[in-house]
């Protein structure tokens, strides 16, 4: 980030080089300022112009800080029930009631739930699960999908055919239904209990979605492998491994990154839906649990009690809405920056 910003800050004609729409009068300066720019620098410049994408990115960075620093930010223990002091269903801080146990109090900004747990603190800790449940399946999906797609696209033949048939079936089997079946089938097994079901959730969320990435990469490879530079590499004696890792993979990274940006919110929503249905994570009752609750679980509890305490439902719902919005903005920005074919779509 620092490298690119210093580069644009130095010459006064930064807008001229960036958009190149209006010819600059000062030719000498223009040529002098032209430093070699990589695809990634270009993409970053393009991305930076999208204000919504930058706002989304900033929000996500903020959430990462919240997740890491949750113990410092949370005002109370998110698991400990404390009806004596906190009161049952205490209202949000700015709401006053006659009962001193339920009237708003700034030490419980969003009030408390039915067992006297601070909603704000639970919300802060919930960020952790949403982020890891979004990112870890994405990494698994990429680690499986990219190699399969590369090999299927490059080698063709039987492997390619099998992949296409499998993805055809996956397309017909809606992901959420599959997730539900997976969670019910394995949720009560020994495997489903590891880390309160977090490991099972990672598997569930990544076990079929890799096919989409594999198909995307395969398509890229099919288009790229006929290009002249690949032919040139092959003529100069490069093996399949070198062509794949040095030529095909780097040139298909753009669409892969864009796809990855849309996988994350999908996984976050799926976790929330599964938890809402009561087949997501198990609640962690340990006082020092690193992942005590998720926004999905909070929504589930909130949807039963929202008439008594509206923030139990409102806070986690808004949190999920904001994180998916942020990812969508970042994803759209990345697409405009990295996927030249869809440039017009904006």
């Amino acid at each position, binding site marked *: 980030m620092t490298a690119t910003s210093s580069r644009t800050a130095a010459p006064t004609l930064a807008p001229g080089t960036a958009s190149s729409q209006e010819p600059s009068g000062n030719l000498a300066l223009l040529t002098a300022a032209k430093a070699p720019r990589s695809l990634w620098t270009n993409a970053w410049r393009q991305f930076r112009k999208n204000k919504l994408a930058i706002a989304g990115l900033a929000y996500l960075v903020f959430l990462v800080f919240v997740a890491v620093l949750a113990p410092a930010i949370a005002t109370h223990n998110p698991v400990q029930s404390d009806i004596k002091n906190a009161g049952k269903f205490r209202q949000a801080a700015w709401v006053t009631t006659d009962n001193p146990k339920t009237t708003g109090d700034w030490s419980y900004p969003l009030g408390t739930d039915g067992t006297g747990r601070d909603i704000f603190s639970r919300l802060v800790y919930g960020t952790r699960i949403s982020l890891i449940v979004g990112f870890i399946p994405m990494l698994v999906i990429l680690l499986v999908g990219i190699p399969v797609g590369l090999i299927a696209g490059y080698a063709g033949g039987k492997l390619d055919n099998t992949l296409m048939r499998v993805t055809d079936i996956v397309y017909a089997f809606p992901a959420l239904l599959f997730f*539900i079946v997976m969670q019910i089938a394995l949720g009560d097994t020994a495997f489903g209990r590891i880390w309160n079901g977090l490991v099972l959730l990672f598997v569930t969320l990544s076990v079929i979605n890799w096919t989409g990435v594999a198909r995307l990469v395969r398509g890229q490879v099919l288009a790229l492998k006929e290009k002249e530079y690949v032919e040139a590499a092959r003529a100069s004696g490069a093996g399949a491994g070198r062509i794949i890792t040095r030529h095909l993979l780097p040139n298909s990274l753009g669409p892969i990154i864009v796809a990855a940006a849309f996988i994350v919110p999908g996984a976050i929503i799926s976790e929330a839906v599964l938890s809402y249905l*009561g087949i997501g994570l198990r609640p962690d009752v340990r006082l020092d649990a690193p992942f005590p609750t998720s926004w999905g679980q909070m929504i589930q509890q909130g949807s039963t009690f929202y008439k008594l305490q509206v923030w139990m439902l409102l806070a986690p*719902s808004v949190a999920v809405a904001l994180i998916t919005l942020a990812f969508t903005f970042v994803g759209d920005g990345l697409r405009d920056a990295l996927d030249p074919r869809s440039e017009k779509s904006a």
Partner: protein
Amino acid sequence: MLQFLLRRVIWVIPVVVAVATVTFFLMNRAPGGPWDREKALPPATVQALNQQFGLDKPQWVNPGEVAERWQAGERNPLALARAFTDSRYFNYMFGVFRGDLGPSYASKGSQSVQEIIAQKFPVSLKIGIVALIFAVLVGIPLGVVSSLRQNSLLDYFCLTLSTLGVAVPSFVSGLLILLFMTRQFGYSPVREPSDWEGFGQAFLLPGIVLGLGTMSYILRLTRSAMLETKAQDFVRTARAKGLSGSAVVNHHMLRNAMIPVATVLGPAAADLVTGSIIIETIYGAPGLGNYFVTSIGKRDYSMIMGTAIFYALLIALANVLVDVSYGLIDPRIRTSR
């Protein structure tokens, strides 16, 4: 065209087989039997129930039965093959193709899964129809208007609306709208069972919320497709011929802009089906999606399996319809295949 249609319909079969096999395999991994109750049933009852529903048979294939028949002097290969496949898996699969999804275990076998689906699905279908009508009738006009008045205030409003609709899942928007309605208008999500009979206004809110995502997609696609056709030569020709503005929009631009819009309807079908599971639960609509969630709570495995297969079939058929609709909208696709 007919051959193309036939090929697409036949492809539905392996899809359903694959989905049924995967769900059968996974559901059999689930711990606990179908007769587990809070108060344990007597072993004799469990045995009788297992026998009644063929659950005492082996899971995949039944070589024991073949050996028995062979000893008894049976030599007919067809009968032996049937004996070999007299297992829970094959019996279930044969049942699926006859439209028999087996008994619902939660009802102790008094009701079959297909009966429950037939009873609950109409409510879901009505909500789905409202959603689809809303998505098409609001999405397309808004998309057209916002493309004709590009960069106007209305255009920005439509863009914001569609961005929100695409990004925020119906699960969250459904809850937020419910919260807003209850707090601002005293709307009660709990309705009388009679409200869901016929085609009353009870279907309006769940339908609109369910269709919000699809509407936003259609709006976006219509807008960008219209903007693209705007610059095409045939539109300029049509204008040069002296056609009126509305004729150009209706006959030349809209028809061409509809091709990418038709492509959304495939994913939209999947979206509406899975969305209905959540939306019906949120709004308490007594449809199949809501019942599906109840059977998850009851661990009614046969009901879960049957509903999943039914949904997959529904989506597969919707995809066939979408493929056919391309051909109807765009003659070029019809001839090229």
